């Protein structure tokens, strides 16, 4: 590695640095990594600052959609997707599906841990009867503020 020992001209050194050992110009790699670091810092600060200034603060608004129904030996599994259209995240979102057909309406519920703003989370509701046969109403019943 040290086959080409560099002899640096002493004129380049700065003797003004109070007698401290001052190095030569930082290597190129140092500039590159610092530039990447600067970019990361600017992205983080820029986005967070932009969000703090202009970000929307509307409450969570959760829509629940039916994705697919799969018959299993342990009931009909309705895979659902909860989409938070609001501007704040929601925690412990209770979602409920009411299946009304002939006879008593059937209710199934699940709790989703977190749904960030403008994001979606998935879960499943399990029914005894086929949700495709009756009328299925899906909705979010409530949530807690994220902390």
């Amino acid at each position, binding site marked *: *590695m040290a086959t080409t020992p560099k002899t640096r001209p002493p004129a380049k050194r700065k003797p003004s640095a109070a007698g401290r050992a001052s190095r030569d110009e930082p*290597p190129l790699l140092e*500039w590159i990594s610092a530039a990447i670091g600067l970019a990361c810092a600017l992205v*983080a600060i820029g986005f*967070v600052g932009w969000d*703090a200034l202009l970000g929307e603060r509307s409450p969570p608004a959760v829509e629940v959609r039916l994705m697919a129904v799969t018959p299993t030996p342990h009931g009909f599994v309705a895979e659902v997707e909860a989409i938070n259209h609001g501007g704040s995240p929601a925690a412990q979102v209770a979602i409920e599906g009411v299946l009304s057909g002939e006879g008593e309406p059937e209710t199934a519920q699940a709790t989703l841990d977190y749904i960030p703003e403008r994001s979606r989370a998935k879960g499943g509701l399990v029914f005894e009867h086929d949700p495709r046969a009756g009328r299925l109403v899906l909705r979010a019943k409530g949530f807690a503020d994220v*902390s």
Partner: protein
Amino acid sequence: MDANAAYGRALARAFGGALLFSFPLLMTMEMWSLGMAVERWRLLAFLLLSLPMLLGLSYYAGFEPTFRLKDEVLDALAAFGVGFLLAALLLAVFGVFERPGPFWRADLGKIALCAVPGAIGALVAGKQLGEDAPSSRERSEAGTLGELFLMAVGALFLAFNVAPTEEMILIAYQMGPLQALLLMALSVLLLHAFVYRLGFPGESRRRAARGPLRTFVGFTAPGYGVALIVSLYLLWTFGRTDGVAPHEIATMTIVLAFPAALGAATARLVV
């Protein structure tokens, strides 16, 4: 080319240090939820404060043996980049980010929050994992303000590891006033003992030369004050103080000040 190779090694060390110091946080659930829940102004303030802190830390423990302002700035920025990229990579590997949908503010919040401890680790690694011992000249140069700064960084660093967890609040709920006072006394005692009596490496001999009372007034008391302030600041940043009764905030601060005091005491060890 030699300088570049040396810097590359230092950079790899920085990644190692950042990994070592930030993985407990990256693998803590509360950090992910806090990343999206922390109020944006507080997160912004935290990020903006972290840059001068990294700059100061780079002066005392940079991963390049530097003295000049330009180098300190470059090191601090590189350290932030290391922390940021490492947090982004590991959180992605851990599957923390929402699978569908674009990369958005919740994800960025998580990365930004985890980037800072990673960056501290990256800077500290230069000293901890480095080949050359830090010059004693640098250390003795730290004046009273420098000492307080290092104590604050140490406190922040250790307290940060537990501050986001629910347990801090839970412990505060469990403790009565007497226990809180006891924990306070214990923190101060440990802070005093760790720094000035146990003879850890990094203990300053010139301080031991002073009387115990002067040492206590001059260093231990301000050190615990720093630990309290750092703890309160962290709790506030994480929104743990919102809508909480003052005495409960005080207890939480005392609870968090326990690890913070240990961090302040061992700052010289780590940083």
